[in-house]
């Protein structure tokens, strides 16, 4: 009798954990999907600020990130706070043009470890402006001792995610930091 109870409880726990996994992954996918339409609408409207992707949403798409070499396409949301990052990579821009994009290692930035020096990155802003970047460097740093300098002179693109990408335990101190430099003048 007790073993049946234990099995039932464990099964519940297992489904709870799997549901959490599904919820996090699902949120990441659904967020991207929902934002895609509001992004498209804003592009059609000639670069007007994108609408809220769903009623009551606090995040809205701020840019689109392409990595042609890895065939990746992500919609980037405003702000790098944890709640925003559930829906998509978060973006923040420093006063001198230092662009920071951060995302979870287990959802949108799972690919970040595969980026190598020389890979091309495209960033599309709401007005349809596309800028090309090239990966210059990727490094692993300790978040307890390293800070991001938002005042750094730009243009500079920095992408951050947790390291190691496939670690089992969550919340480790290490971060993978990929920096990229612009390769062209603005094209439309």
């Amino acid at each position: 009798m007790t073993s049946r109870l234990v099995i039932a409880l464990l099964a519940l726990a297992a489904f709870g954990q799997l549901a959490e996994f599904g919820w996090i992954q699902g949120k990441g996918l659904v967020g991207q999907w929902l934002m895609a339409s509001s992004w498209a609408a804003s592009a059609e409207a000639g670069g007007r600020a994108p609408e809220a992707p769903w009623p009551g949403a606090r995040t809205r798409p701020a840019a689109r990130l392409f990595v042609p070499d890895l065939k990746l396409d992500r919609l980037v949301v405003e702000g790098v706070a944890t709640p925003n990052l559930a829906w998509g990579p978060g973006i923040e821009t420093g006063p001198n043009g230092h662009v920071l994009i951060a995302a979870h290692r287990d959802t949108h930035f799972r690919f970040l470890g595969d980026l190598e020096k020389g890979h091309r990155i495209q960033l599309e802003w709401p007005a349809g402006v596309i800028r090309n970047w090239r990966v210059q460097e990727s490094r692993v740093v300790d978040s307890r001792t390293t800070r991001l300098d938002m005042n750094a002179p730009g243009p500079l693109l920095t992408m951050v995610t947790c390291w190691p990408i496939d670690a089992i335990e969550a919340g480790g101190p290490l971060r993978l930091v990929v920096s990229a430099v612009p390769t062209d003048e603005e094209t439309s």
Partner: protein
Amino acid sequence: MTFTRACFLIFAFAAAASSADAQHRAGLQLVSASGSTTAVTQSTEIDIRVTGLLARTTVTQRFTNHTQGWAEGRYVFPLPDGASVDELRIKIGERLIEGEVREKADARQVFEQAREQGRTAGLVEQHADNLFSTSLTNIAPGEDIVVTIGFGQTVEYRYGRFTLRFPTTTLPRYENGAGAESQTLANSPPAPVYSSGAAPRLSMSVELAAGFELAGVQSLHHAVDIQGRGSDRAIELAEPERGAGKDFELVWSARDEDRLQGALFVEQMRGQAHALLMLLPPRDFKPVALRRELILVIDRSGSMQGEAFEQAREAVRLALDRIDHDDRFNVIAFSNTALPLFDGPVAATRANLDQAYRFIGELTADGGTELDATMGMAMAGLPDPGYLRQIVFATDGAVANEPQVLERIDREIDDSRLFAIGIGHGVNDAFLNRASSRGHGTTTLIKDPRDIAGRMSELLVQLESPVLEDLQIDWPVAAETWPERIPDLYAGQPLMVLARLDGPASEIDRGSVRATGFRDLRFVEMEWPMRDYFSAPGVARAWAQARIEGLADRPADRMDAQLRHDERLLTALEYRIVSPLTSLVAVDRTPRRTEAAKLERVAVAGAAPGDRNLDNSDPAALHAMPATDAGSLEAGLRGLSILTIVLLMIFNRRFNRLERSRRESNADEPIADHGEHA
């Protein structure tokens, strides 16, 4: 996801983690051509046990290498003047490595060798008078190592106050252009970096066994918790996190101050008794009318900027207030050059004094600290007949050319007296003590603005009182006494000497120590019975330390350089203490780092003095790393593993049930058979 990327350690983030930014973080700093970043954190625990006039301190520092590479580091720190370091222990996990004292070059070689071989090792070296460094090498990635350094020091007694000092900061010493090699850390890896901002975590506890009923115990600059009664106290920093940046000063006094006449502490080492004697001169002095020529010298160099300079200004004003109209005086301000108020000493008329107050008020602090020429100016010529020249100089002691200044004082002091006022935290008190004792004067330390009035009035009493001169000490047996020449004593100062007696402690019960001297031409005698002594560990090493320092101070014409070197080295090796000639080195027996793992070089930051601003980066522009882990992998894996367990349990139940039913059916058959037989 290459291995090299995972191992990347040194990192100047986004080309903008400027060096100023790196400096204001506490802890070990990784330094390389590409910039620096903090990688190794550190906490410091200080334990002090005071027995009578001796204090034993152990400093325990924990370093954690947060990086993925092998690290090495170097930590530069000040110790109190006269501290004798005799202990180095390194703990890695459960292993304990003990340090041994070797000749400096030897020790460094042993350390370098260990470094190359991939062994964990530590090295404690002495650089300037009271500036030491600990070097560590081959700290494994993610490893915790605990370094313990032990040293002894004596407690200061003055005007009824016992003072224990522990410096937590060093001032960067000013260096002039050429040839001031004595203060630089010879052939050192990256220079020490001063850390302001967040200070390293510091906790401190003091066990005080004064040996007499205590009247009051007080920490001057830190909030502390004090417990205990009678002659014993336990003191702890109330806010451990905020300790660094200000020198620790603990002050206590006796309930029955008048009954305090002296004390004798004895330790036996190497078959000989070593003694520390403190005697208080009789208190019945009266200030005598004395015509003085007061030369006030004020340090207005860049290192004094801020609160320190205000304090120096205030101290000089207080000295001016006490000048008698019979006296003569002058004021000299100095930085890169000396700036005298008058060409020479003038009469203390109202007009002249007013001019001096104005002069003091208009000074600003900037530039270097060239004390040598200034001292020459202060000591130039002879004072008017019938006047005693007293030179009072207020400085933080972060001066250039220390040896030249000391030599000049030896050469030119004549009958003049030199009094040093050390201003602020992180003062180079070792230098000030040397300068003032060569100048037959005293050193007064002022750490805090609210100390100024009290300390200055004590100094001014000293300036006005007769001294105890020509002191001689007679021990009942032959003895080697340090300091060799007992300095003149001023009001409020006890006589303090260290001696090594010719014979074991068991034989010194008879007789007494006699000190004689003159006060204002009258004969003064003090006596202390030898059998009234306390056993105290630390006396022997304090004696050895005094000998090593004393021999260095002997004028060159009185001692052959080679002999001096040999004697000092021998003393340091025999008594196993760190000195300018010897270092402590500890090496792990097993090499642990493989050839392939690269070693990263680290320099460690000290704490910058609290009132000095070395930090000019903008912390607001620095963004913490975002949290970039949703935890879904962990959840998913956890879910899958629990699911596996559930499936296994279900399978197990099924299997058990099947087994049972099979056994039951097997068991039924023989019974049925039996039944048939019946």
